[in-house]
């Protein structure tokens, strides 16, 4: 199992972070502090036993019940060893700062912009952190759980559309 060798290398290099590794449904996840992220990510990319050359995806999840409710999820993949690893970094709404990984994996550029756009996580060191899918002048971060679904003003007079979660069958 190559997951084991990744975990083994993590235990040697970052013992406290490796403690937080979780294996669920055959997939390995490690929770990290924002301060640890860059060192761990650089290690995982460069270490020959890990060799995560590919940052497959970055997405966000909002857990309003948690103190650090904004969770950024990185999916790493090693083409060489064919193993995958998930890194999770949680931050609060008051201090939503996560270091950018754009210099390690240039592909992180658009992914981080998307997470910023939808969740309001600020990636420090990102060359151009701007909204990507929502319009530039949009207010709010739509994928947060307290952001309502739909109900957007329509640019015609006397027309309004009720939110989709109100008008749908599952209201």
């Amino acid at each position, binding site marked *: 199992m190559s997951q084991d060798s990744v975990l083994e290398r993590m235990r040697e290099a970052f013992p406290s972070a490796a403690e937080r590794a979780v294996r669920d449904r055959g*997939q390995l996840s490690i929770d990290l502090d924002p301060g640890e992220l860059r060192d761990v990510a650089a290690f995982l990319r460069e270490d020959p036993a890990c060799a995560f050359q590919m940052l497959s*995806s970055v997405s966000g999840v909002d857990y309003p019940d948690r103190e650090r409710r904004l969770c950024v999820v990185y*999916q790493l993949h090693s083409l060489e060893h064919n193993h995958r690893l998930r890194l999770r970094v949680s931050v609060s709404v008051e201090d939503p700062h996560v270091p950018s990984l754009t210099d390690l994996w240039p592909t992180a550029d*658009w992914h981080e912009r998307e997470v910023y756009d939808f969740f309001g996580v600020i990636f420090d060191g990102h060359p151009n952190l701007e909204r990507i899918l929502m319009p530039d002048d949009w207010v709010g971060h739509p994928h947060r759980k307290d952001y309502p679904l739909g109900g957007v003003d329509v640019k015609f007079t006397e027309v309004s559309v009720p939110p989709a979660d109100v008008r749908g069958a*599952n209201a």
Partner: protein
Amino acid sequence: MGGVRLPAGRSEATDGAASAGTRAGVGSPGTQGGIDHVTEGVMTVNMGPQHPATHGVLRLVVGLRGEEVVSCKPVVGYLHTGIEKTAEYRNWVQGVTLVTRMDYLAPLFHELGYSLAVEKLLGIEAPPRAQVIRVMMTELNRIASHLVWLASTALDLGALSMMLYGFREREAILAIFEAVTGLRMNHAYIRPGGVAGDVDDETLERVLDFVDLMPAKLAEYEDLLTTNPIWIERTRGVAVLPADQAIALGVTGPMLRAAGVAFDVRRTDPYCGIEGYEFDIPTFEGADVYDRYRVRVAEIRESLKIVDQTVDRLEDGPFMIEDPKLAWPTHLSVAPDGLGNSPQYVRHIMGESMEALIHHFKMVTEGFKVPAGEVYVPVESPRGELGYHVVSDGGARPYRVHSREPSFVNLQATETMAKGGLVADLVAAVASIDPIMGGVDR
């Protein structure tokens, strides 16, 4: 890898256009005729969002010095419809109906990726017949998608007849899809636990006919293009993206395989028993538009091989998981507007069994619950790694659905490929990515 240029965003682009309005470049040849988007001899041009060569509503803010592209910033988001957000307000099965609308040329791959993620969360596997049907339908979908790519790219580069041929053969696949799912797109056919309907023998005959027909057609395309000096002139050595830059930019799929890297999710993370089929992963070394063309043509051949094998492997059995707590309760029949409830089933729940009616009502309105957890499941879509990151909090609706869309990721490589080339090659570069804006913007 440090040498990879990153595409920058829209404000820089608009800033560039605005400051250009100060006419800093007056006197340079580009300003003649009163064009005021010119700075230092670089003219800023908006290509799109409405432009026939951008394959949808993609906007490229292009900096041009004469015919040379000096910068190219893709601006996306015009088709954003909040599919991922909407999925959080619908039950698990309804999610299929939503995700199929992202990539409208490869809808079955989105259904498959999402369904596999939900199944992994549930800890279930679809029955063998459903697995084979899934492989058959998605590989047919790959052929259809590559045919549209071939048709539209050839159109962009001036090969009009190829456009007609590509769409002609794609029709045959869409006819098969229509016979099986009732619709040509937005099928909602692959669902958690299996597939929504069975494939009958008549359809299998059509699939086999198509597999028999295609090699001659592929030879026809290759006669038209592969050694065509104009096609080679327009594609060879154009929009080169070497393997190291491609990996750094997260580029996957035919673009990466055209750069010599044999990365294919069907090999690294096989799904639906696809590891048991015989097929090759074609790779080429040129990393240019020509080799992306050759990779896709070769992939059509490989997909035909897989489809041919699925027909023999299709054994009798259920096509949906038999657990009544998870399976969609009805037996569907194909109607002109898609899959609908069959008359026998409606008679059963309305006239014969109160329990069946209650069960139906509960499954359709509330749906099933999925144990809490988080998974990432990739599939190999025609454009590359399509990953579904799905989070459940234990409820009857997804807590979060995120699609790692290959079009979105691959589009980042536009500037790297187009910079230093000609405007005409920019069209070839964008076309060779095969971006589907519905998938990019979601």
